[in-house]
């Protein structure tokens, strides 16, 4: 039975159902219970945005508050994952990766390969990504391209409540280390989500909208921006095919290529930094694998090569918007 719930609720529900289903699922992070060892209410916060609130009442010690020691507790999640648990660790903002990246990219990501196939590390790192919160340069980054770059990691970037739930359940059941990226502007969006548990397989893009004229690959929050542009463009007879890869690693290359084979035109819309970013990655995929189908230049719509500014107006300029996508689509539709 599907109901309309928020992205945030979908994440909470996925965690709840998996913790209920599997006793080896545990969670850890800063203030994910929140207040536990203090004098006031237990479970006061449930994470900085309240996403895990209520889980402590159900699962008790399987939720662990942590000190501000990301290397130690993310590393502990990684270590515990090799010892029979399925930890879900919360890195509050992906921007904090700089104090704990080693445990993710040199340890979790490489164990299986370095150890000759004799390790499994089923750890999930949930983390907030993206701009739009007026949170400035150190709390607004995408950074998932950095994780996508690392062999051994899987990277998930849901854009809807439905996908958030199904992909998080898959992340927890998956036997490889997964970076689960939650775009902070999406938490409040609503969508139909089945009550029952379901897993969405990795590496299967979602065709958000079908169309014959231009392929638009959009990621995370940008899926909605692209949708807005597509709506407008449809009025002018330009039909966009919007593809949401949902996971950047593995990437559903086939779906992207197939679509470009049909449309001959590609726009990639992504909110992470442009250099060595996701847009470049996907543009390169198509330029190397589906070049002959292309009728004209690929257009990437990304922020500029700058940190994220604080001031609202500048931040709004920083984030790609529907108008930019529209322009890009019109340009490729006109060309070739």
């Amino acid at each position: 039975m599907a109901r309309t719930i928020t992205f945030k609720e979908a994440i909470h529900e996925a965690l709840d159902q998996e913790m209920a289903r599997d006793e080896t699922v545990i969670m850890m992070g800063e203030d994910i219970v929140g207040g536990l060892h203090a004098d006031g209410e237990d479970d006061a916060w449930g994470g900085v945005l309240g996403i895990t609130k209520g889980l402590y009442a159900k699962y008790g010690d399987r939720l662990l508050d942590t000190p501000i020691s990301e290397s130690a507790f993310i590393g502990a999640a990684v270590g515990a994952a090799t010892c029979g648990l399925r930890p879900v660790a919360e890195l509050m903002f992906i921007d904090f990766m700089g104090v704990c990246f080693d445990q993710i990219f040199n340890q979790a990501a490489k164990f299986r390969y370095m150890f000759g196939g004799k390790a499994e590390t089923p750890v999930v790192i949930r983390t907030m990504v993206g701009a739009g919160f007026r949170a400035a340069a150190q709390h607004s980054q995408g950074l998932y391209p950095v994780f996508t770059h690392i062999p051994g990691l899987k990277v998930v970037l849901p854009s809807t409540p439905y996908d958030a739930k199904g992909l998080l359940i898959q992340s927890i059941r998956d036997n490889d280390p997964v970076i689960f990226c939650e775009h902070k502007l999406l938490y409040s969006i609503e969508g139909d989500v089945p009550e029952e548990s379901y897993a969405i397989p990795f590496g299967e893009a979602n065709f958000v909208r079908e169309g014959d004229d231009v392929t638009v690959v959009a990621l995370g929050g940008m899926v909605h921006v692209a949708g807005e542009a597509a709506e407008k463009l449809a009025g002018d007879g330009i039909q966009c095919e919007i593809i949401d890869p949902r996971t950047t690693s593995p990437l559903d290359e086939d779906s992207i290529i197939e679509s470009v084979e049909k449309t001959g035109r590609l726009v990639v819309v992504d909110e992470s930094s442009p250099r060595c970013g996701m847009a470049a990655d996907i543009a390169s995929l198509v330029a190397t694998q589906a070049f002959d189908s292309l009728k004209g230049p690929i257009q990437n719509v990304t922020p500029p090569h700058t940190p994220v500014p604080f001031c609202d107006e500048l931040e709004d300029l920083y984030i790609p918007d529907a108008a930019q996508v529209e322009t890009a689509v019109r340009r490729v539709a006109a060309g070739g």
Partner: protein
Amino acid sequence: MDLNRQKLLEAYEMMKTIREFEDRVHVEFATGEISGFVHLYAGEEASAAGVCLQLDDRDKIASTHRGHGHCIAKGVEVKGMMAEIYGKQIGTCRGKGGSMHIADLDKGMMGANGIVGGGPPLICGAGLAAKTLGTGGVAVAFVGDGGSNQGTTLESLNLATIWNLPCIFVVENNGYAETTPSKWSVSLSGNAVDRAAGFGMPGVVLDGHDFFAVYETAGEAVDRARNGGGPTLIECKLNRYYGHFEGDTQTYRGPDEVKKVREAKDCLALFSEKVTRDGTISGADLQEIDDRVMQLIEDSVVEAKAAPKPPAADLLTDVYVSY
């Protein structure tokens, strides 16, 4: 202590400015006109003031996400700060940094920091620069109880010792990191100061509501550092009056916790009482300061609100010196 009347008035004005600044930001934030994450320092003023009044122009500080108090204490212009929090072009950082990133290198203020534990390594560098260039300067890292558990902070303690740097680490233990109590998160003891010895430096713990205690201890640490005696760890036990950030309902705190602290441990009240009791300073002196401070804060809000946002072109500027 070298606290003459002049210096006492300065201390009071500094603390009062911080308090009024924070109280006002609290009020203005609630109107919705200020964006982003804002962490207020109200209640902790004696720490910033007691330390920074021992510093001079050669000296550097690095702050935390809860940075307004340190900025004001190190002489950053209040109007620029307020405008920065409003994201305006006349802000200290042209509106591009916001509350969590106010910095003014010319004033020796190396930045608030959005990363818990971001400051201590930088302060090792500031201390190293002072030592290498022979400026006689010292460098102070403020860090919270939560930040005292960050590896970057712990490494910095050791580095400062073995490089014999003129550095001071001030742990402002306000009892919480967000909701997490320091009595649990800091080695179960709640005492960051206990770590100093293991890193080969003197450690002092004190009542951080007491300006005089902070001032005296900081003075000793600064002297030692300036004279080549190496780093010190100072732990100030104190309290924050508002939530972790604006919007925090603070249900993790005991019911009357903040109220009690405000009543019994207010650093401004303690200070006023002490300096007026012995007659050095009159109530009227303080009132005069209060009035001036209120006016300054009022003006800073009015000017901040009226000021223009940065132009669109600013999005692309100042990423590099040259590129």
